[in-house]
């Protein structure tokens, strides 16, 4: 299924001529390294400090299916290897000077690895959800865990989301550290009572007596013609609940890191995964690491515009970034990762540099993460903005089944390119 992108955290943004090692799909324009404002900025190496966050070296991602980045349906089934707009000189990055080479795996395997390591580390960590045990999880995130840890630690529940989420909360209050899986994030709408009333509130209403170190996770987002009810983005519904944290993973590296951090956190955390990102491949470090739950990830530093995104839209943005780079723009891309609370430091630093903000999200327009982000940025960084913040979100439409309509509900790279061009006028 998914994606093809790659990249990240890098130190140098080099143009494709020097770094690309693959042929891109139909939309590639020949990249000319010399470019009026591009070259100096792009070829110079900004501080290596960004690489401190990443110790991995990244390689290309192979996609099994394809993501239709351009509206070209014929390209769907073909394997696409898209050169990253941000080439990382992986070997030269000081962060990869760790002695072990790291290992390559897919995102769902990274989640599983994170989960397995935490379960080995702490016997109180347990998993509950539908089909997590014998079936191995509907997206294979828990495959093999039931055989290893037993049926009680990896609990196959009946189809009763509200009740088993509440059960997880009760277990968390009494000393365990459950990871509750929603087979699809949309099913957690049934658990909204427990998540809102108990998960978020009980630490407060009990005067701090009970902690609820629960992780609620599951795949959400618009998939490949899954229909309206299986294509929901619940970030916007949960974001107002006081007392919970929300994070969204987008690469195998941050998936494993966020999973581990969420399990270790004393707060209730909702981890949003995306149905189309489970087959992303990446090389991640062998050693133990976590990703800070409250921090955003600088994907590509840039000078002209700050693009804020998360989850699957990160890949659409990076696809658009490649086009933009070819057109001579220098977009900065931040994967906000922490949907609640926002990392205003990383975001703010970028805004102060670029003075222009574009938010690209898969959430609905009304009351979505983008809406909150606009409010937060306007409140805090209004002085630094040269233009009104633009926000590209999904249409306020129940996701249609038809492929064409589904394409148009979600933000596509071409729209992102157009938006940046408009913003940078």
């Amino acid at each position, binding site marked *: 299924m998914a994606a093809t992108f790659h990249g990240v955290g890098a130190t140098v943004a080099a143009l494709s001529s020097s770094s690309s090692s693959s042929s891109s799909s139909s939309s590639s324009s020949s990249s000319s390294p010399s470019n009026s404002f591009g070259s100096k900025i792009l070829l110079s190496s900004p501080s290596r400090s960004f690489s401190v966050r990443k110790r991995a070296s990244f390689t290309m991602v192979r996609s099994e299916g394809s993501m239709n980045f351009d509206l070209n349906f014929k390209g769907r089934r073909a394997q696409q290897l898209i050169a990253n707009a941000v080439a990382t000189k992986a070997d030269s990055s000081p962060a990869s000077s760790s002695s072990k080479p790291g290992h390559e795996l897919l995102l769902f395997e990274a989640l599983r690895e994170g989960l397995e390591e935490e379960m080995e580390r702490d016997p109180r960590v347990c998993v509950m959800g539908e089909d997590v045990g014998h079936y191995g999880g509907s997206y294979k995130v828990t495959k093999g865990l039931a055989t290893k840890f037993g049926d009680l630690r990896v609990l196959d529940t009946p189809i009763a989301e509200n009740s088993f989420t509440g059960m997880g909360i009760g277990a968390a209050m009494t000393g365990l550290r459950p990871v509750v899986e929603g087979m699809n994030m949309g099913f957690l709408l049934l658990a909204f009572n427990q998540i809102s009333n108990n998960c978020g509130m009980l630490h407060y209403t009990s005067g*701090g007596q009970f902690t609820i170190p629960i992780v609620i996770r599951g795949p959400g987002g618009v998939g490949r013609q899954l229909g309206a009810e299986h294509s929901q983005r619940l970030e916007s519904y949960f974001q107002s609940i006081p007392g919970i944290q929300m994070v969204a993973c987008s690469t195998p590296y941050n998936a494993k890191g966020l999973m581990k951090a969420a399990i270790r956190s004393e707060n209730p955390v909702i981890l949003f995964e995306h149905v189309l990102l489970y087959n992303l491949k990446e090389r991640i470090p062998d050693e133990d690491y976590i990703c800070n739950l409250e921090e955003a990830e600088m994907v590509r530093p840039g000078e002209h515009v700050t693009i804020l995104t998360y989850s699957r839209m990160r890949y659409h943005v990076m696809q658009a970034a490649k086009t933009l780079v070819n057109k001579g723009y220098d977009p900065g891309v931040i994967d906000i990762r922490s949907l609640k609370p926002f990392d205003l430091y990383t975001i703010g630093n970028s805004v102060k540099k670029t003075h222009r903000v574009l938010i690209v999200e898969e959430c609905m327009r009304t009351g979505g993460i983008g809406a909150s982000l606009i409010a937060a940025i306007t409140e805090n960084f209004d002085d630094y903005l040269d233009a009104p913040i633009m926000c590209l979100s999904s249409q306020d439409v129940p996701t249609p089944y038809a492929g064409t309509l589904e394409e148009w509900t979600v933000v596509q790279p071409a729209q992102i390119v157009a938006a940046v061009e408009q913003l940078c006028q």
Partner: protein
Amino acid sequence: MNSASCAAKISTQPFSLNPTSPTSHDNPLVFPKPTSLFLGSTRKIRLSSSSKLNLHRRSGTVVAVSDVVKQKKSKSTPSLLITKEEGLELFEDMILGRAFEDMCAQMYYRGKMFGFVHLYNGQEAVSTGFIKLLKQQDSVVSTYRDHVHALSKGVPARAVMSELFGKTTGCCRGQGGSMHMFSREHNLLGGFAFIGEGIPVATGAAFTSKYKREILKEADCDHVTLAFFGDGTCNNGQFFECLNMAALWKLPIVFVVENNLWAIGMSHLRATSDPQIYKKGPAFGMPGIHVDGMDVLKVREVAKEAIGRARRGEGPTLVECETYRFRGHSLADPDELRDPAEKAYYAARDPITALKKYLIENSLASEADLKAIDRKIDEVVEDAVEFADESPVPSRSQLLENVFADPKGFGIGPDGRYRCEDPKFTEGTAHV
């Protein structure tokens, strides 16, 4: 038809307890005829039938205490159910519950506490009958009618009263209120405002107990969880979902239904297709017992068996206690719908009066003993009010504490520091 025998067929252990399941007639729930016509309204009150209810005295099982009380000179009374110490303990606990709730009503009308306050008068037998059998490590989950559950479980009256007054010395630092009583020390897991919401939490606590025994290898962990809820909750999905899960995994939990026949103004009969709640237990593979919830000794006997089952790892039990609340649903409820005859019927079965009678007639305690307890409890309650009155209200700095167990959850501010490190945060004036 007899639920206990159905249960006996399902459960491996013979559960022969069936003290008051009124199998001898078709309409087990008897009420005075209500003034308005609705389904099931044509039942007659049967005041004299209680002596006919317990038809079969099985040896060693529960004796219908009310029979013993009524038939003073009857056949040889079986051995007493309680010792003097136990009797006084039960009496004291019920008196504490009653006195406390009466004081709450007073304080509410004097403007010391606000919001929704739900009082437990009349139902004390259920709380005392069950909770006094528990250890400190056992857990109790309740609903919004939780003051007396908290007191029975051991939360000091001072802490509960302070919480009701909204003071910082309350059991939840004043942040919970009447409907959200929690105590980590006494394993009171709440206090929930939405009905049915606490049942999954109770199921989770029972799950932890099983997990501790089987995975964490704490071999002697036999903690039991009690979930208290009302008749209205028994029509809610969470109830059924949790009955299923508890029976499926044989969790050490007892589901205690406090059937007081009314959910605010909704009669149980008007809301429920089959009003016999105990029958729903066997449908999920657990015993379902119906007990007279106005009689603390009967409740206690049933509770012993149910809690014993759970401790031995035999799984959950559903116990329906037929009880009654003497006051309205809450202090804001004018309580106009209930028939005065019905109220009078149950007032005559006041659990405290019944226990008092039992204690005296069986020479377990004297009037003087009981009066002494009355006075003692009055002092405890007065002291609780004084303590609460004198306690400080929460300061502003308390506002943002406890939202997160790890306050880093408030995130990183524009200056790069965690917001919780901002001094305004600890003052409670930060905008998060």
